[in-house]
């Protein structure tokens, strides 16, 4: 190192300026060429840092590209965040959901998504004016969004259309609620189909939404969601959803 840099570095350290760390936290750990594009589109001008407190877990590869499970763990934020976004960079519909935890939502959730091809997957958590981003990569052979006839696709979805099943499990910080909703979640990308998907989801206590999400058609057919909520087993919740055709769904969480 050139001698004259040493005093400068010492000054920076004394000032407590961890510039190298901050620089690292701004650089995409996956080195994906699509990162900047979606940072701009989804996160705008708000400061961004890659943050290991935003955990994202997925299988290394998609065995069934129509149903790829993704778990997000941002429980270190103790529910103190305003929004959470999940997107799959190389999906034709990249955004999966926009989650607002409101009063009762916590930072752990799991959802099944479609994967068109091998892609980086990002989750961004907005807390105290900064987007905190976690990343992973999933290998896939594709066809999640544009190929009909993925394994286990139900031919006769109308039979069960709108059926909701829900369970609640005790969790260290409240309840883990699991919900399964029978809905085709058509992306409209398959020829001769129109977009037909659930776009609004909320957990409601009394008449108030206490956690809400908007979904895109990158959420799998017959969506499955696990979400942690602050309330314990005694807290009454309802699950409510609405699709883009105006169908409404409503179910008491047991």
């Amino acid at each position, binding site marked *: 190192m050139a001698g004259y840099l040493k005093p400068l570095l010492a000054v920076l350290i004394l000032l407590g300026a961890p510039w190298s760390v901050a620089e690292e936290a701004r650089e995409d750990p996956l080195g994906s060429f699509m990162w900047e594009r979606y940072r701009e589109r989804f996160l705008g001008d708000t400061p961004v840092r890659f943050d290991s407190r935003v955990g994202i*877990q997925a*299988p290394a590869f998609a065995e069934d590209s129509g*149903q790829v499970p993704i778990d997000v763990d941002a429980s270190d934020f103790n529910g103190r965040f305003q929004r959470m976004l999940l997107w799959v960079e190389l999906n034709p519909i990249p955004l999966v959901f926009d989650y607002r935890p409101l009063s009762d939502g916590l930072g752990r959730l*799991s959802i099944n998504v479609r994967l068109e091809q091998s892609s980086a997957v990002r989750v961004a958590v907005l807390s105290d004016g900064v987007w905190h981003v976690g990343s992973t990569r999933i290998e896939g052979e594709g066809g999640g969004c544009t190929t009909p006839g993925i394994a286990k696709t139900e031919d006769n979805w109308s039979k069960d259309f709108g059926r*909701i099943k829900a*369970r609640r499990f005790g969790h260290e910080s409240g309840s*883990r609620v699991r919900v399964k909703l029978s809905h085709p979640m058509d992306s409209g990308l398959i020829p001769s189909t129109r977009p037909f998907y659930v776009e609004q989801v909320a957990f409601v206590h009394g008449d108030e939404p206490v956690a809400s999400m908007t979904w895109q058609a990158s959420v799998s057919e017959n969506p499955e969601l*696990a979400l942690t909520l602050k309330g314990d087993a005694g807290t009454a919740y309802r699950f409510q959803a609405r699709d883009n055709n105006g169908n409404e769904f409503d*179910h*008491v969480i047991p």
Partner: protein
Amino acid sequence: MSSPDGATRSWLVKAVLSVGLALFAGPAPAFDYHLKPVAVAERTWMVQGRREELSEDNGGDIANAAFIATGDGVIVIDTGSTLSYGRALRAAIATVTDQPVRWVINTHHHPDHVFGNQAFEGAEISALPATIAALKRDADSFRTTLYQRLGDAVRGTETALPTRALEAGESRFGDYPLRLFAFSGHSGADLVVLDPATGVLFTGDLVFHHRAPTTPHSPGIGIWREQLRQVRALRFDVLVPGHGPAAKDESPVVETLDYLDWLDRRLTNGAASGATRNEVIQAPLPERFADMALVRYELTRSVSHFYADYEEALLWADPDTTK
């Protein structure tokens, strides 16, 4: 370039040499497999595949093939993933016997066991009827997968469907009798072959050894386990599994049963406690599977194949349902 003339000359020499070699040796194989038959009993050999998943590095050499030199011709059991593998297998057989290959048996329809069939023109190819039907159904998508995973090694590979339908019981290949068992636990139609003369049991992929079992077309873990108990009750001296080393005892059957028992418990406990798929996949693996290849990989696949069924039975069976 400092010496264009020299470079051109050396290119010319190479071109002339390779044309000359091609004229002598025919087209180069798409992949060089280095297959070595290992004797497992009198007149019986196996060619062991690598305990890996399909990749460009292994050219699809991941499953076992075996053969019996009956005296009246060779019976080949399973033919690998590619035409080049089939040809390499044929050449490897010729290093240990002068007898011609007259029969090919496919234990089941999975791509790592059938796509060398094409190399055995002139031989009669046989399988269970349900295997033939399944191969007709899946062959095109299998070949697409092979091209994606193996690249050039698949060059020239076409589907060669079995023409003779086998059934359970004694079956003759020429005058050579084999005992056939029709199971379904691994792929929907799984042939197990016992050679009563040598005591060799060829299990196909109903039995894996030191390699985690794969489950894409399994009708269910319970059915597979029940059939393994039947296999375990057979009398044999040598067992040739579909993947992994041969054994002189029932240990590969016991190991496969143990894995499937564990997989069943893991999925059962996960579904009953509301665990997510990723939680089931990522939880620690038992130490006793440390020597087993591809456990996490196959667990990831099996969760995709089966977990929804376990959840249907254990998680969603009795919630109050809207509708």
